[in-house]
């Protein structure tokens, strides 16, 4: 069966520091991959999605970037974090019908 792993679960970073969140999927090949951010009491904001290795689409202008170096690996990065980057980050993969989410990373910026 398919599984999705996302880490770390929580992260506290100072303003201006870099960021790297990693997501890997097992049990499927060539999935569509997604990064979302969810603010407290808010909906899911799509940040990036990828349909294949090296193919990244960005939905909103932001301080973040994404990369897909391998078929089942999706990385969210930032060179310098801002206070506004705080939130709950979710990775997901899609089988074209539904989305399957990881357990998220709670990012706090100090």
């Amino acid at each position, binding site marked *: 069966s398919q599984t999705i792993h*996302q880490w770390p679960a929580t992260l506290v970073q100072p303003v201006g520091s870099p960021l790297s969140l990693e997501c890997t999927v097992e049990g499927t090949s060539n999935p*569509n991959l*997604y990064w979302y951010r969810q603010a407290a*009491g*808010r*909906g*899911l904001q*799509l940040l990036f*999605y990828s*349909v294949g290795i090296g193919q990244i*689409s960005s*939905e909103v202008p932001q301080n973040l970037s994404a990369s897909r170096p391998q078929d089942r690996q999706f990385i969210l990065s930032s060179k310098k974090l801002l206070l506004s980057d705080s939130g*709950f980050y*979710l990775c*997901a993969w*899609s089988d074209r*019908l*539904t*989305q*399957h*989410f*990881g*357990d*998220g990373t*709670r990012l706090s910026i100090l």
Partner: protein
Amino acid sequence: SQKIEQNSEALNIQEGKTATLTCNYTNYSPAYLQWYRQDPGRGPVFLLLIRENEKEKRKERLKVTFDTTLKQSLFHITASQPADSATYLCALPPISNTGNQFYFGTGTSLTVIP
């Protein structure tokens, strides 16, 4: 872009009653609609998918209806239990076969009171 509205306020119900959550959407006619459950600090989990040619779908104590004329889906939990307390999200698929973006509502927070 797609707009999805769910019950704007949290919903509190007594254990054993039926919870009904509403999802309204605009701007296009999706081939299907989905419901997800999200517990605090966790990612959403897929519950049910209903297609445009299906009026109703059931899974154990869950029932979903889909009215494409009203552009509305109703999500029912019968004989509700405190363990059903969570946030429930409705979602629509990409607009076309070539699209990739799913559209999620902001969710309705359900609390089942013992």
